[in-house]
């Protein structure tokens, strides 16, 4: 027997639908006009150090209860606000809220001045200075170094290549080491296909548009489904703001510095050198097993940018075997910064591990 419809229910449903239609119209106009900008990167912070385009931010969000301070090294291909996307959905906010002293090394937007920046520039020049600045600011002898995506590669090379690196913990988030397992993301750059120089623009860097196209072509029709979902939820301010924030980030790539891109293609992708356990950096060979500190290898099970097989070998290559741990998370590449799964699994998982390997501040 079909359920009977209460007239009062019917009236309330009509009222709800009318109200939602009005809100849809209002948000739709705002969306089309572009005046609905998401409030991204909202955790209070200050710039405490700056060199070239690189800036070191210190977040201020409550009392610091655990040390050493955490230095997040962001990737070179995207904007760092993915890790502080929106209030209530931010890894940085979660970590600071849990009493960690969080710093972010943001690389800025490279231009022709950065075209010569190579791996050595990042690993041997920027990182030691940024780490020293963190130590100075926080008054700490050590740091927890946390690298996201390519930022993890930079962090691992720094921790392995500097004998005096004051790294208590090395947290690698979606850090690719096996480039043979990177699939479609790097297929265009394999031997015999495009050479790095063919992608450079007049500034000597890979333009942000080229990087965006690479990511977009992974799933070119998904945007249609996303826009349809937005249309259905256009009445919901919270949903629209989250959608805007994510859409803004996914289009907001930065140019990739030419010299480091050349090394990425020739050494990491074509020779897959990290899988040998070492890499030539400047005039020396860096042995990844020499990485200092406890190592946490965090990966997302449904990451199609850096799939788990590209990340798993960290457990055999980086740091002291007795001090390596693995954290498998549900979700995709952005689960390290945002999303329901991030709030439920990633943020507590990463923060808990760091706190377990930190000291109580008195």
């Amino acid at each position: 027997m079909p359920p009977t419809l209460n007239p009062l229910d019917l009236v309330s449903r009509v009222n709800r639908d009318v109200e939602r239609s009005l809100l849809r119209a209002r948000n739709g106009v705002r969306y089309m006009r572009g005046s609905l900008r998401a409030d991204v990167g909202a955790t209070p912070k200050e710039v405490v150090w700056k060199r070239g385009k690189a800036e070191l931010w210190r977040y201020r969000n409550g009392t610091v209860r655990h040390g050493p301070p955490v230095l997040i090294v962001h990737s070179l291909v995207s904007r760092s606000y993915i890790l502080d996307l929106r209030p209530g959905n931010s890894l940085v906010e979660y970590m600071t809220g849990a009493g960690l002293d969080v710093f972010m090394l943001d690389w800025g937007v490279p231009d022709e001045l950065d075209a010569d920046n190579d791996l050595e520039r990042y690993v041997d020049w920027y990182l030691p200075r940024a780490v020293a600045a963190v130590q100075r600011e926080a008054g700490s002898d050590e740091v927890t170094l946390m690298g996201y995506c390519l930022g993890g590669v930079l962090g691992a090379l720094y921790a392995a290549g500097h004998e005096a690196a004051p790294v208590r913990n090395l947290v690698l988030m979606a850090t690719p080491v096996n480039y043979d397992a990177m699939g479609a993301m790097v297929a265009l750059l394999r031997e015999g296909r495009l050479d790095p120089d063919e992608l450079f623009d007049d500034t000597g860097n890979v333009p942000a548009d080229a990087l965006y196209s690479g990511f977009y072509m992974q799933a070119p029709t998904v945007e249609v489904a996303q826009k349809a979902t937005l249309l259905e939820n256009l009445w919901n301010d919270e949903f629209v703001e989250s959608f805007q924030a994510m859409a803004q980030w996914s289009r907001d790539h930065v140019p990739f510095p030419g010299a480091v891109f050349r090394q990425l293609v020739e050494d990491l992708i074509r020779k897959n050198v990290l899988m040998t356990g070492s890499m030539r950096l400047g005039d020396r060979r860096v042995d990844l097993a020499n990485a200092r500190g406890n190592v946490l290898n965090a990966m997302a099970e449904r990451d199609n940018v850096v799939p788990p097989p590209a990340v798993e070998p960290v457990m055999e290559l980086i740091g002291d075997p007795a001090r390596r741990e693995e954290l498998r998370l549900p979700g995709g590449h952005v689960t390290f910064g945002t999303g329901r799964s991030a709030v439920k699994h990633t943020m507590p998982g990463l923060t808990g591990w760091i706190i377990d390997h930190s000291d109580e501040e008195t």
Partner: protein
Amino acid sequence: MSSKQPLWLQAVHRLERAVGEPIEKAVRTDTYFDVVTKATRATAQARRTVVGTSTRVLHLLNLPADSDVRRMREQLARMERRLNQLSDDVSELDGSPPRTRSRTRP
């Protein structure tokens, strides 16, 4: 979750997957990567031809071309990089690293 979605939205999602899955498979094939490689090279070659012709015309008229401006920008960038390096070296010798403190937004 999907049961709470209206029928039209479920239909759009199904249609998107029906079209999207074969496309996603296609853009992961060697054929696709070979086509993109050739297309990128052809576009670059066409651009070089057009730029080469326009440069010759502009030089005939004794006017600077885009490539001249680009070379100048490269030289300026090299000089600025060198200046920045020197400035950093001097700061570190002084023991007073350039340091800034300000509120920031992305």
